[in-house]
Structure formats: structure tokens, C-alpha cells
């Protein structure tokens, strides 16, 4: 090998080598998920978050304008489709109202205490582009807005992922397609429990399915609420292929339009003392 810089060659090489070793060391440290590495990560993203926030706004506006033009060209068929949908949904609306009334009476009969108290924190996606090996985004809300690790992140459609790291004013959201994402789910109709495991592909797999599980394509998959970290019943996706080996789920969230998300601040009933009123009622029955 030729020396490009004969005078400084040795020093340069030593510097290069030690930096490579340092980087390898960091890789191993980050694999161990130490608090120190996480602090560093969130510290840096906190500093850069305002810049990314500012940068991502005009880009989002541009994308919106392009979208608007595209939508204008198909206004008429879209309108017809929506009219049809409204008719269909009106029927469902009636059903839902009836069920809601039923539900209320039945709950009253059972002295049922509401399971959880849920509030939302809205955030904007300010960075994605993790490349081929990760599926995560940065959002412009952090611990000071009430975000905590493990909280569910949803769009209007359904579950997008979970908060994996929180800084002061920014947080990283691990999308459910990521390699490291594991979400306890249940099939809406058959009530089959499973874990939704991401593998960086567009369609995560269902693992730990019971042996006699019968899932058909088109079945809706929702969060099961097991483990207490996520609220139950959030729509996750739809089963697309249910072959012999693996069952895959198409997430309901449109990743390309992931601009605003809501973080669910969820307190499971097991984590807080039951309200005194509930206790009294329970004691009486």
C-alpha cells in the first residue's frame, strides 16, 4: 500500500484506527442499550429538533400542494365514491348508536368501572429517512409534553408504533414495521392472540400464534392491551396472507402521509388506586 501523506501517515493511520475502534465500541455499547447512549441520542435530537421542524414544514407544504393537484383531477369519481360510502356508513351509524345505548345499559347493570383514562398528545413528524435498516421517525414532542417511553402512537387510521426514546422536546417513535417492534395483538373476530413482530418489510408477521389458530385474509388485527402498555382495541392492520408458515399483516397506517401523529397517554386501571366510589359499589355487591 502506498502512503498518500508520508509525513503524517503514521499519525493519521493511528487516528483513523482508534476512531474506527471507538465507533465499534459505541456500536456494542448501544446494543446494550445503556442509559448513557440514550441520553446522548436524545440530547442530540433535542438540539436538532427545532431545525428539523423548520426544515420539514415547507417540504410538507409542497407535498400537500402536489397532493391537492392530484386530487383535483379525480374529484368526480371520488365524490361518487364518498356518497356511496356515506350511505353505507349511515346504516352503520344507526347500528353504532343502538349498540352504544345497549352498552350503556348493560354497563350500568354490571356496575362496570371504565377501564382506563386516555388523553392524547399531538405531535408532528419532523424526521424519517432512517434508511434500509430501521423504521422509525422523530416527532417534535418530548418528555416536557408528557411523552414517555412505550406509549402508543396513532394516526387517525390506527396504530403507527410506540415511543422508544424521549428527549425534552423530541422523541423517537419505533414504527410497528421495525425489526425491533413487538406488539401484543388480537384478531378482532376470532379473538386469536399473537404478537405482531416487525421485520423491516412493509408487512409485519404474527408470531406466537396458538397452534389451532385460524386466521383468514381480511381479518382486522387490533391491540390486545396485554402487558398494560398499550390500550386495547386500537386498529393495527388487516391480515393479508395466512399461509401455512407465516401470517402477515398490512398496517392500516399510510406511512407516506405520516405527518401528524397522536401519542396516547394511557393509564391502565392497575396502575392507579381504584376510585373510592367504585370500591364502595364493589363492596356492596
Amino acid at each position, binding site marked *: *500500500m*502506498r*502512503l*498518500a*501523506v508520508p*509525513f503524517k501517515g503514521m499519525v*493519521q*493511520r493511528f*487516528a*483513523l484506527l482508534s*476512531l*474506527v475502534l*471507538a*465507533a*465499534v*465500541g*459505541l*456500536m456494542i*455499547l*448501544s*446494543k446494550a442499550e445503556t442509559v448513557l*447512549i440514550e441520553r*446522548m*441520542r436524545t440530547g*442530540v*435530537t433535542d438540539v*436538532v429538533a427545532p*431545525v*428539523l421542524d423548520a*426544515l*420539514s414544514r415547507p*417540504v*410538507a407544504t409542497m*407535498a400537500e400542494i402536489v397532493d391537492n393537484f392530484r386530487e383535483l383531477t379525480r374529484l368526480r369519481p371520488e365524490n361518487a365514491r364518498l356518497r356511496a360510502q356515506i350511505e353505507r356508513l349511515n346504516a352503520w351509524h344507526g347500528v353504532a348508536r343502538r349498540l352504544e345505548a345497549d352498552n350503556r345499559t348493560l354497563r350500568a347493570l354490571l356496575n362496570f368501572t371504565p377501564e382506563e383514562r386516555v388523553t392524547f398528545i399531538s405531535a408532528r*413528524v*419532523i*424526521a*424519517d*429517512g*432512517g*434508511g*434500509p*435498516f*430501521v*423504521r*422509525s*421517525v*422523530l416527532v417534535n414532542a418530548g418528555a416536557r409534553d408528557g411523552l414517555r417511553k412505550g406509549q402508543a402512537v396513532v394516526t387517525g387510521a390506527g396504530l403507527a408504533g410506540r415511543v422508544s426514546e424521549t428527549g425534552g422536546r423530541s422523541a*423517537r417513535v419505533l414504527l410497528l414495521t421495525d*425489526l*425491533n417492534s413487538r406488539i401484543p395483538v388480537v384478531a378482532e373476530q376470532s379473538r386469536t392472540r399473537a404478537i405482531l413482530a416487525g*421485520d*423491516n*418489510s412493509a408487512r409485519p408477521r404474527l408470531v406466537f400464534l396458538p397452534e389451532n389458530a385460524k386466521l383468514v385474509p381480511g381479518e382486522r388485527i387490533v391491540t390486545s392491551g396485554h402487558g398494560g402498555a398499550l390500550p386495547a382495541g386500537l386498529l393495527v392492520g388487516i391480515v393479508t396472507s395466512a399461509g401455512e408458515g407465516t401470517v402477515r399483516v398490512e398496517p392500516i397506517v399510510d*406511512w*407516506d*402521509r*405520516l*405527518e401528524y401523529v397522536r401519542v396516547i397517554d394511557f393509564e391502565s386501571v392497575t396502575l392507579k388506586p381504584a376510585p373510592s366510589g367504585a370500591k364502595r359499589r364493589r363492596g356492596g355487591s
Partner: protein
Amino acid sequence: MKGSFWHRLDNIARRLVPLGLTLVFILFSVVPLHIPGYSAIVPMLALISVYYWAIHRPRLLPPIAVFAVGLAQDFLSGTPLGLHAVVLLLTYGAIVSQRRAFLGKSFLVVWWGFLVVSFAAVLLSWVLASALSGTLIETRAGVFQFLLTFALYPVMTTLFARVQRVIPQVARNVPGP
């Protein structure tokens, strides 16, 4: 040293341009573009930058700067910390040691060199990411990332070549290549 305080400050600012530019490109590469599938195949703009400066002005992007660039990339894109640092540093080391093979060559030769280098870099990051996660990550997105990075090289280097003209040639006074 020659010149006044302002002159020197101006010089320092200009010499920080390669590092600053690379960091800016990293920022741009993580901004959500809302293009279907883009975020998984986002080009390694930092790699283009490291390749270019390692060939043309390695002194303006010393190993420590490459290390910082790699860490910045890892911090922002959420990859395991150190992954891009390793990839970029090894790329840098390989290019600097073989600099003379590229200097003064036609653009096509250098671009061809980048084909090999970017392939090796994406492959290495795939190997590292797979080893760290303990599974074989699917390769399709990696292949597209490599192709996109390769395709963007001419655009990026045109920009770098323009920028290079504003950087003073002070480095030439020091004994060097």
C-alpha cells in the same frame, strides 16, 4: 500567517465548509419528503461527501470529522450508534490510501470507483446492522439505497466542485502529497 483577524476567520470558515456541508446534507436526508417508500431507501449523501473530499481535499475532512459525520447520521436516522461512523471511516481510510489512483482521472473513472465504494459501504452497513440485530435484514431496500446513492453522485459532486473553488489553498503550503 498572513492577513488580518478577519481574513483568518474567513479562512477558517471556508475550511469548515466540507464538514458543514456534509452535516447539512445529513439533515436534509432525514426530512420527511412524503414520497412513497423513500424513507427506506434514502441515499447516503454523507458517503458521497466523504468519498469526494477524501479524494480531493482529505485535509479538510480529517478522520475526526468523518467520525462526527457518522455519529450525526446515526443520531438522526436512528441506526445503531457507531454504524455509519464505522462505514464512513473505513471508506475514508480506503480512499485516502488509494488517493493517487483517483486524482486527475476522468469523471467516469471516479464515478466507477464510487460504484464499487458505495456498494461496499451499503453491504458493510447491511452486515453490521444484521449482526447487531441478530437477523438477516431484507436486502431490497439496501439495493435501492445503493442505486440511488450511486445515481446522485454526479449531481452532488458538481455542487462540491463549485464549493471547492471558494476554499483557500492554504493547505498547499504545508508539506503534503
